[in-house]
């Protein structure tokens, strides 16, 4: 799957998570905003981690050279 497709999946997962949290843990406007901040931070962190590792392997400059015991 391509870069854009998986990024959209991450974005959708974040949206679904925030909707679920809003439905299950609705405790007033200020607390909802706090939960939303947590979800957004988590989604951004996870997406960045995946994106960095994916982009690094997109056009690699070196390739695996197997060791002797293979």
């Amino acid at each position: 799957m391509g870069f854009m497709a998986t990024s959209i999946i991450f974005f959708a997962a974040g949206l679904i998570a925030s909707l679920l949290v809003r439905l299950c843990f609705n405790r007033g406007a200020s607390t909802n905003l706090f939960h939303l901040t947590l979800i957004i931070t988590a989604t951004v962190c996870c997406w960045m981690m995946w994106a960095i590792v994916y982009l690094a392997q997109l056009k690699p400059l070196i390739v695996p050279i197997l060791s002797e015991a293979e």
Partner: protein
Amino acid sequence: MKFFNDLPPMDHFRSENMSLVQLIMPVESAQHAVSYLGELGLLQFKDLNGDKSPFQRTFVNQVKRCSEMSRKLRFFADQISKAGVTTYPNPDSEEVIDLEQLEAGRFLGSAQNHLVMAETELVENTYSIKNEDRLSLLEQSMQPEPSKKAGLRFISGIICKSKELIFERMLFRATRGNMFFNQAPAGEQVMDPVSGEMVHKTVFVVFFSGDQARSKILKICQAFGANCYPVPEENNKQKQLTHEVSLRLSELEATLDAGTCHRNKALASIGSQLWNWTIMVKKEKSVYDTLNMLNFDVTKKCLVGEGWCPTFAKPQIKEALHQATIHSNSQVGIIFHDMDSSESPPTYFRTNRFTNAFQEIVDAYGVARFQEANPAVYSVITFPFLFAVMFGDWGHGLCLLFGSLVLILREKKLGSQKLGSFMEIAFGGRYVLLLMAFFSIYCGLIYNEFFSIPFYIFGESAYKCRSTDCSDAQTAGLIKFRDPYPFGVDPKWRGSRSELPFLNSLKMKMSILLGVCQMNLGIILSYFDAKFHGNPLDIQYQFIPQIIFLNSLFGYLALLIVIKWCTGSQADLYHVMIYMFLDPFGNLGENQLFWGQKELQMLLLILAVVAVPWMLFPKPFILKKQHTERFQGRTYGFLGTSEMDLDHEPDSARHQHQEDFNFSEIFVHQMIHSIEFVLGAVSNTASYLRLWALSLAHSELSTVFYEKLLLLAWGYDSIIIRIAGLAVFAFATTFILLMMETLSAFLHALRLHWVEFMNKFYHGDGYKFKPFSFKALADEED
């Protein structure tokens, strides 16, 4: 920007609004009021008698009485534990025990104590006599003709076994060797009346001649605490003595048993109440300590107190005071009103058990200034995330998850019992551990490491051999024939010879990217702080130049990294960055990544160079101009408060600050701040490379344990070696990887937050809200 203004205030982001309140209580309802406020636990009293010594305060006698009472209760508790009486604290009996009743109990206790002391001495005596008995047997065997040895006399006694050797040596020296010493162990342990413990004793006999020697020996015996008992020489007399002694012994034992029984009964009856009494006395003492903080207004026959309370708690406090007025049958109600204050209020966050641990992590560095942006809001996610970047292995993550789930599922049980210091820390951080475990599993899946073994969970590898027989796989390597591995690091890298160069490059660049993002978040938080406090100077002359400086250098580096990855260029980024400074006009040649790079670099360099004096110079001069405008003509300072009210308000709320504007101090402060930021931009970005370093260390350690312990042991056929290898592998994984590496990654993630993230916006020089609360007392006791 308007979008951010319209949002409701976020929980935990800024500390609660606090009000300085004043309470005026009539004396009869004061104690009830303070007691109920202690139950509520939402008011922090200010000490209005701070300059008075403890003995000058109003309620010093009551405090002394409470201390005495708690001392007696502690004595009781000691006695109970020494007697080995088990008590069952009775939580149901909520009767309010009078202090007089406690006094009666104390009397009984002291009487018991005397009896106990007398008994122990008698016991010692009896045991000694009993042992003398044995000693006489010893004598008999050694001394066949007692009558013949005319001048020879002896002293016999009993001494602690530990002192016996020194005693013997001392006797030898004192009598110049003219003595004969013999000793035998006393057999059973005897209770030493001095220390109240059971010690081993030795029975001894010293033969000597002469009076001087006798007096010397007696003195030495006295000094060493040895008890001397006379033993007659003839056989008949010895038998008589033995008989007498045994009679006395049995009598005393009977008395002792009866006494102990009585004492234990008394202690047991006290013991069930002891816990309640102790708590009650503690509460009373704290109430009096708090009453001592109030000003006693003699003219008006009432107590005046000041304190901080959260604004949301004011109705609850009013209710508690109302209850106190009713219960104390007072005619006059308690007056409760707001006061203005110029000093900074305490910081109070209403945390639940989940956010409590993260808030404590932030508070350990410094308590937030009043209504400053709270980094804990972001740390809830970024701290476990950065931990996981350094710990990434989903096998180890599963172990952490298991451990944290055990702690969380047994929360109620573990919360009520007393834990050891290590378990207490682990229990307090159970939700942190849970989040750390989740993110570790995620990062482990990305790094593709399960106890350092890669898996093909997300599909086929993107690499294959160039030719069908894989002849050059060890020399030229594989080739990439399709899209990159969809999630995480390709499993073919593990074990290859070029694994480390690839992973090192990946992880170093990842650290820089994550670091630049977190530092930018920190600077953006300083913008929101400046906006909240209405400080446009900070925005224009601190936030903007900081953002420009950081992003024109390190944001640009991050951009170059991403472009190099996307285009697959062979440009050397070190070279590009260094020559951006050394030779900005030179040709980039093969290091060109995109069109217009040279011009962009020159622009960014100029922006960075302009940003430095921008954050350094304007702010102090503008502050000086503002100050002279505000205090035009008033070159001398204020003399103090000019409005005098008829009723004398306490002067704590009426500090008038001397408006002393020291320009040089402000300028130096700004210079330090700017230099710290500029140099810190480089050093902090480099500091994020620890994410790479620790993740490499973790990966290498787990590889070594897997290959050199488990695989090596599994290579043999014998089952014993296999099991031994498995055991050593499990041991090494638990102690080195799960404990030491967890602590290490925890520490480094903490450092990254405390220093690199929080020094962009956090001041952390506030003080924590410590309300007067009985619950807090109980926690302190434990």
